[in-house]
């Protein structure tokens, strides 16, 4: 068997063992993930089915519009895949202890590279296919395509994913070879800034495309011209789009041509990536490990003074935890970069609400937009608390003796984590929602109502993550992603989702309905608002106390 064959056989054995273990140990997790995956898939399918139904109402433009939708959709996926592949392959080639181990074995560097490359293709392609299949099925369903359309489309996707994977891996190897590790943090910041600027430009662009009244022929012509960049013949996403459309039109020869174009480019780029790795992988790997540790200014300095001044009402020990956890967060590029991307994109969107002319819409529509903004902010927040707050206590595991021996009660350690999560979430979320309300030109009563609801949601989400993190800790693991992937992390995700749904979907919605009808009876509205505010605070406080108590009782009797 070849070197690559041995590595892949071992990996598939490990995957088989992992799947058996998951089936044995965590049925709830499997059921939850499958249910959500299916629900999301169905929602995507239905959304696209409606979109294609809408497009088919204008038969004269149908082909043109479908072509536009496909080319834009696949172009966005292509860009996202290149970006995610570059990040994934960087992590898997340069930050994984497995590569340290493999490099000591009699393996050629290109075998190690190919193995990691295939692993990346696998990780990125399943998500791509998962996202792409609903649009294609919805299209096939509306269009009445031949039977071979579906399997052939999947083959095209599988061949296509090698293109962004190869481009991403070439970018990653070249960046590590050419950019010193000490500059990687700065490069990450610049890349995120570039991404946010790109989002800003996209929003401004989209705002320019929106028709003032109903969509007309002129608007359509203008739209086609503005998005013609997605129809560039050199873009792999266009080849895929044309291939899929050819299949749908029962033009197998033409589809085969596009498949050939995609396949030859996939192979070429894969060979190119391999050739680059042969010369550069070991060099770049060694370089990535050859940077001396930089000296960091120690002491608690300004941050400590600010936290002491702002949170003077909290006990000293809890303030110390706030300082420690804030420093850890700021120094961990993975954490701040993800938060910056998610909330940065949301901030750009919210700050462009007026460019999108949402503020000029009728009261009911504005109210719906505000509620959706609230839901989006809370959902992003829950990914933050789930990904970074839930594993906080588990990550103390191996060094728990430091805390265990310190003259501080475990309850305070837990509260320290809670306040860190709560205040961190609060600052970001309140800012975003206030900006959204200002952009939508809502009255102060709406600002106030949203501020209170966000306060309750932040407290609840922080308590859920900290409480369940203490109830289901994984003290042996120091990889937060694996801690989150366990049973406790999954439960945290479910509970957080339900909490958001309950707060936004019932209390928030009820308030918005009442707000929209306030002109009929303002007194009723104020009564509803008062009840809503009290209920929000009550549920937020009850949830916080409940989950913190669960965590505390478990945490206090835990052995380390």
């Amino acid at each position, binding site marked *: 068997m070849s070197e690559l064959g041995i590595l892949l056989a071992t990996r598939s054995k490990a995957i088989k*063992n992992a799947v058996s273990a998951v089936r044995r140990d965590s049925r709830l997790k499997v059921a939850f993930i499958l249910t959500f995956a299916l629900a999301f898939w169905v929602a995507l399918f239905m959304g696209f089915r409606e979109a294609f139904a809408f497009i088919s109402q204008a038969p004269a433009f149908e082909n043109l519009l479908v072509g536009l939708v496909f080319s834009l959709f696949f172009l966005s996926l292509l860009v996202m895949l290149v970006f995610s592949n570059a990040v994934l392959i960087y992590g898997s080639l340069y930050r994984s202890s497995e590569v340290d181990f493999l*490099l*000591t*074995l*009699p*393996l*050629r560097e290109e075998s190690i590279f190919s193995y990691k490359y295939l692993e990346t293709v696998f990780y990125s392609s399943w998500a791509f296919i998962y996202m792409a299949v609903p649009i294609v099925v919805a299209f096939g369903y509306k269009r009445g395509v031949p039977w071979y359309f579906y399997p052939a489309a999947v083959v095209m996707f599988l061949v296509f994913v090698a293109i962004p994977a190869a481009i991403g891996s070439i970018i990653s190897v070249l960046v590590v070879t050419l950019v010193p590790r000490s500059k990687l943090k700065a490069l990450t910041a610049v890349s995120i800034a570039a991404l946010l600027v790109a989002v800003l430009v996209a929003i401004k662009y989209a705002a320019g495309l929106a028709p003032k009244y109903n969509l007309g022929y002129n608007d359509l012509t203008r739209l086609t011209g503005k998005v013609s960049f997605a129809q560039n013949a050199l873009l792999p996403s266009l080849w895929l789009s044309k291939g899929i459309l050819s299949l749908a039109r029962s033009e197998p020869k033409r589809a085969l041509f596009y498949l050939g174009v995609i396949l030859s480019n996939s192979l070429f780029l894969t060979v190119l990536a391999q050739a680059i790795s042969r010369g550069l992988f*070991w060099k770049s790997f060694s370089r990535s490990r*050859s940077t001396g540790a930089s000296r960091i200014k120690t002491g608690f300095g300004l941050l400590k003074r600010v936290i002491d001044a702002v949170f003077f009402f909290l006990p000293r020990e809890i303030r110390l935890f706030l300082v420690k956890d804030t420093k850890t967060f700021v120094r961990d590029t993975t954490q701040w970069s993800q938060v910056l991307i998610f909330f940065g994109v949301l901030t750009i969107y919210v700050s462009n609400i007026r460019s999108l002319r949402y503020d000029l819409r009728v009261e009911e529509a504005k109210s719906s937009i505000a509620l959706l903004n609230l839901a989006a902010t809370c959902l992003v927040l829950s990914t933050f608390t789930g990904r970074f707050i839930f594993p906080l206590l588990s990550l103390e595991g191996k060094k728990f003796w430091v805390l265990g021996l310190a003259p501080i009660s475990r309850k305070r350690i837990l509260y320290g984590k809670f306040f860190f999560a709560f205040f961190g979430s609060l600052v970001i979320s309140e800012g975003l929602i206030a900006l959204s309300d200002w952009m939508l030109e809502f009255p102060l009563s709406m600002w106030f109502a949203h501020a209170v609801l966000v306060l309750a949601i932040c407290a609840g989400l922080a308590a859920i993550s900290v409480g369940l993190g203490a109830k289901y800790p994984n003290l042996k693991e120091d990889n937060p992603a694996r801690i989150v992937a366990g049973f406790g992390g999954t439960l945290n995700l479910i509970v957080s989702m339900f909490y958001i749904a309950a707060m936004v979907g019932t209390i928030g919605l009820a308030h918005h309905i009442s707000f929209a009808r306030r002109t009929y009876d303002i007194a009723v509205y104020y009564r509803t608002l008062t009840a809503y505010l009290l209920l929000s605070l009550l549920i937020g406080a009850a949830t916080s106390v409940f989950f913190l108590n669960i965590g505390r009782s478990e945490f206090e009797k835990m052995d380390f």
Partner: protein
Amino acid sequence: MISLKNVSKYFGKKCAVRDLNLEVEPGEVFAFLGPNGAGKTTTIKMITGLLRPTEGAVSVCGYDVAKQAVLSKSTMSYVPDQPYLYDKLTGREFLKFIADLYRLEGDLAEFKVQQMVDTFELDEFADQLAESYSHGMKQRVVMAAAMLHDPRVLVIDEPMVGLDPRSSRAVMNIFRERSKAGTTIFMSTHTLSVAEDVADRVGIIDKGDLVALGTIDQLRIRSRVEGRLEDVFLAITEGAGV
């Protein structure tokens, strides 16, 4: 068997290893000692091919580690201080994987795997997933994997970390047997009693410089300290630090 010629390694501006010249002979047990951050692990990583020297050349069994990486690695085994195992493989599956990589075929592979399971007393947990192992259990499996293909050179970073006394004794005995059979053993350790017990020669590195090299008796003469290796080591490294 192991040869380092004018080897230097820089991490940015910091020199981790400076102009190191060292020859380790066949069948020799060589102990590489030094304070924390002296350059021991960096040297080991250059020998095993994890790091490229900034200057100079490293060869193992006559193969240049940079230019003939696969050939040099096929003659040696490396046991790091932090053992790496695949969490979702059992110990036995891991040993089989190593046997495949070193081209041990069919019955020979089975035989060698079982031999290592017996030698390192892995039988009790060899068929459990590695994620359930303690540090010591992992270390034993990694040690077994390192011995599986009868390497001509064995490079070990802290061989006794995490091992219980019984396993430590077994490992020391294996070192002696292997070295008699011609295997070169290059180990870095802070457990000076182990070095004193098994090493034929000792090298001491401090702040990137090889400050002493020779048998323990030669080092005693050089440091003018009679007694244990620990006293000799402290005298030499204190002297080097002045």
